[in-house]
């Protein structure tokens, strides 16, 4: 275990300024740690990893890590990632987005990338809020909660990302939290290895913009909330529906083996060219 942090340090860009920009208690660093541990454990060379991010707090992650990194425009990280994967299927393309990034401005790209079932590892860091721009309501802000653009409580219903992604056609769908880090590491390894559109939602607290305004005294309170709210999917399923309340299941929700787009395309090309010669 001694290597945990040193190992992470080996993957960070040394010429970048640390500590990183994230607020105290922000879970983004925890996700980055989990990602690095998983890439390392799986033995994927740094050169083969392309980390694409959108705009927002999550978009700041790639700067810090020594992979091929792309900081895209708001909501469109998946489109650039799609181009990269189709152009060179050998690369491990990992996409990191926030909830507003992936599901609000990028919602259309998100469902279509899932429908295409293109081989991307997609992490959505869901903190229920627009963090970087100052705490505006996002499409995952729980109904009734306060944000700077819902000063009287969020009126609209929020997305269930797991159900949305499953319905859209992704091969693999999972959810974890930044409190349950060992589970997160397992889910991360799953997300990085299984073919096809591979989605992992990570619940990660934003105390600065969301927690403070919604009755969480400090970041620790938010992690306590995650600890008490999230539960393994298997246990959740055994729970009587009326007892589920606000509990959030975590684990692997979907595991399909459908052929990813880049493989189907390669097959088509072989078939067309085979027929020609």
């Amino acid at each position, binding site marked *: *275990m*001694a*290597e*945990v*942090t*040193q190992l*992470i*340090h080996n993957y*960070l860009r040394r010429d970048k300024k*640390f*500590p*990183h920009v*994230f*607020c*105290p*208690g*922000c*879970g*983004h*660093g*925890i996700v980055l*740690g989990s990602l690095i541990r998983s890439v390392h454990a799986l033995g994927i060379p740094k050169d083969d990893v392309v980390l694409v991010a959108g705009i927002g707090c999550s978009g700041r992650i790639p700067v810090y890590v020594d992979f091929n990194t792309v900081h895209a425009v708001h909501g469109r990280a998946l489109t650039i990632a799609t181009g990269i994967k189709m152009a060179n299927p050998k690369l491990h393309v990992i996409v990191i987005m926030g909830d507003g990034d992936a599901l609000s401005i990028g919602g259309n790209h998100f469902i279509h990338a899932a429908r295409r079932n293109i081989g991307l590892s997609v992490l959505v860091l869901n903190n229920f809020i627009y963090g970087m721009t100052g705490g505006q309501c996002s499409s995952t802000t729980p109904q009734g909660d306060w944000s700077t653009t819902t000063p009287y409580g969020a009126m609209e219903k929020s997305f269930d990302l797991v159900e949305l992604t499953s319905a859209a056609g992704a091969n693999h769908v999972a959810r974890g939290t*930044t*409190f*349950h*880090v*060992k589970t997160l590491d397992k889910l991360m390894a799953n997300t990085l290895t299984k073919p096809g559109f591979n989605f992992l939602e990570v619940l990660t607290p934003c105390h600065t913009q969301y927690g403070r305004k919604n009755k969480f005294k*400090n*970041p*620790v309170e938010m*992690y*306590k909330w995650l*600890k*008490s709210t*999230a*539960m393994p999917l298997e246990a959740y399923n055994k729970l009587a529906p009326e007892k589920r309340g606000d509990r959030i299941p975590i684990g692997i929700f979907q595991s399909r083996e459908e052929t990813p787009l880049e493989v189907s395309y390669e097959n088509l090309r072989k078939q067309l060219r085979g027929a020609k010669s």
Partner: protein
Amino acid sequence: MAKTKKGQTKITIYPDWCKGCGLCVAFCPGKVLELDPMEGCAKVVREEDCINCGFCELHCPDFAIVITPKDSKGSTEPNEGSPKS
């Protein structure tokens, strides 16, 4: 899962990187760490009570905590008795 003995680990916290979020302090099962109000970051106060669960190292969002064995030949495997949800 056999409990490993306490106090076999050395905990290093980089004060420059620690932002004092308090996660490690709050969840450490051995109450090894405390927030230093002057420095605004976590510090080790009861290293001898560390059970090497690894929680703080895994959860530190700022990569500011490093746990190493006191005896370099000692086991570095984490104790599975880490906090459960």
